[in-house]
């Protein structure tokens, strides 16, 4: 199975060196090959196994207390004015959703 390591790195916003690309490509291909055994199983007559719940059992829309801001920021390596601060140029002003 072929892997486009450059494309995958781009999606994960990682910059890999030429050396890393050469090293990771066969590694990832091996992983995919091992996993591809699963593809050989005939699942055409098997129902997907997934838990089911009735609509009424969903969470009622009642707000509860959130974390304290101090606690939220404890996990962040950098913060500023109550915000989590992230360094990097790749974030050039595009908002997803």
């Amino acid at each position, binding site marked *: 199975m072929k892997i486009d390591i450059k494309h995958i790195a781009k*999606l*994960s*916003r990682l910059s890999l060196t030429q050396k890393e690309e050469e090293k990771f490509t066969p590694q990832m291909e091996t992983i995919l090959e091992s996993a591809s055994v699963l593809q050989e199983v005939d699942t055409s007559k098997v129902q997907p196994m*997934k*838990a*089911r*719940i*009735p*609509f*009424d059992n*969903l*969470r*009622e*829309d*009642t*707000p*509860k207390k*959130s*974390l*304290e*801001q101090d606690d*939220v*920021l404890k*996990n962040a390596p*950098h913060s*500023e*004015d*109550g*915000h*989590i*601060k*992230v*360094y*990097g*140029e790749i*974030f*050039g*002003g*595009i*908002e*997803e*959703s």
Partner: protein
Amino acid sequence: MMSEKQISTNLESKYDLIVGLEIHVQTNTSSKMFCSCPTGYFQEEPNTHVCPVCLGLPGALPVPNKRAIELCILMGLALNCDIDKEIHFDRKHYFYPDLPKGYQISQYKRPICSDGYVETTSGVKIDIERIHQEEDVAKSTHHVENSTGKQYSLIDYNKSGVPLIEIVTRPCIRTAKDAKDFATEIRKIARYLGISDADMEKGQMRCEPNISLQEKGKWEYRDGQILPVGDYKLNPKVEVKNIGSITAVEKSIQYEVERLTKELEEGKEIEQQTRGWNADKNITEYQRTKETADDYRYMPEPDIPVVEISDEDVDRISEELVEIPVERMKRYIGELELSEYAAEVISSSRESSEYFESLYKRLRQDLNEKDSALEASNWLMGPVFAMGNLDIEINDLALLILAFKEGDITKNKAEELLNQSVKEDKNLAEELERVIQQKEELTNNLDDIVKEVIQKNTKAVEDYKGGKQATLGFLVGQVMQATKGAADPNEVRDILIKELK
């Protein structure tokens, strides 16, 4: 010879505009989509409405909000969609700091609502492909550090996980105005049904048009898709983001039509891309090449079970439906003979249309159908809207309108009374009664007052009798002053002329 103008029109007409619209609407819930953090983040301290779930901390599990899904279904019902019997959530992966889990919980192959339609106020039918449920991302702002020159982003996760529905149309929109009308209609419906405040400036509603130009006669719209005719290769589409108002929906599409026409005329290859609307410059700007669906590596969300929706659930939700604004507008035109303009303005908000209908119903007790509708719409769109106040007692306002219709009070006086009683917080009905009583007393005394004015102004009377017609105006003024403006100037004039013969 053709003028320059004609040439450019001909160039434009070589292509058809194809637009599909994606509209995101934050739905009006108290708690977030998959956790119980409060939603109202506007002007709140950053990162105070967050918990392990909406921060994407390891091991935290999402639990869907029932009300959010009800609102998604409600929008689906209003837009004549089919409602799925099962809800399946999927993970949409991309790596970005506003998305802490590394994926957004969304819906891919099975949206809750599909295959609907809605009509715009100008009668254009817009096909809805789907409405699905997802979650909003965090808010990030981008800066440069003074000391180091490094770029960085500041992230506030309060918005992360707020319920969001995405409404997707088929590529069936053919003009920029239809796109604007559709967005307007969605906003109205969202507000009518209490689904969302849909304030675009606050980001509660976001519109993203997908735009392409195709050569005339080289494409067809079949099964909700644009298909090439023969060996024609379809031009790729451009997605425009960052649109902050309904007018910008129209303007950005118009801009893209011009830009794409020029590119095509110059023989350039058009790249599928995302562009951002710049509201200061009224242009779109290149942002990036668009990621494809494959890049999002969609997969079923394993942390949320399949949710089963019964017919009873849908029936219960549909009890919240009301006649949608465009239907209401059509009824006002068809049954009540309102002008298209009046019908559109009055039906544009649920509050004003409900006020109108109550006022109409009350006037119907005393007036015929046509007059009731006309007076109700005139008074609502005139003085009531001007005061921006829908708290005026319907019955009091009706009495005022009826007094005017009976000729007991002039329109100016009636409006003045309405303004005054609202401004000074007085009871309109009592004020009206007082004024009418005053006027009756005055009418009885008017002859005497006129005689008195004639006696006091001998000079003016002589001038008038000597042929100076203009003096009559002065005398009318004197009488009006003596009655403190309560008399009808035309009536005063008639009495004066009679007396001075």
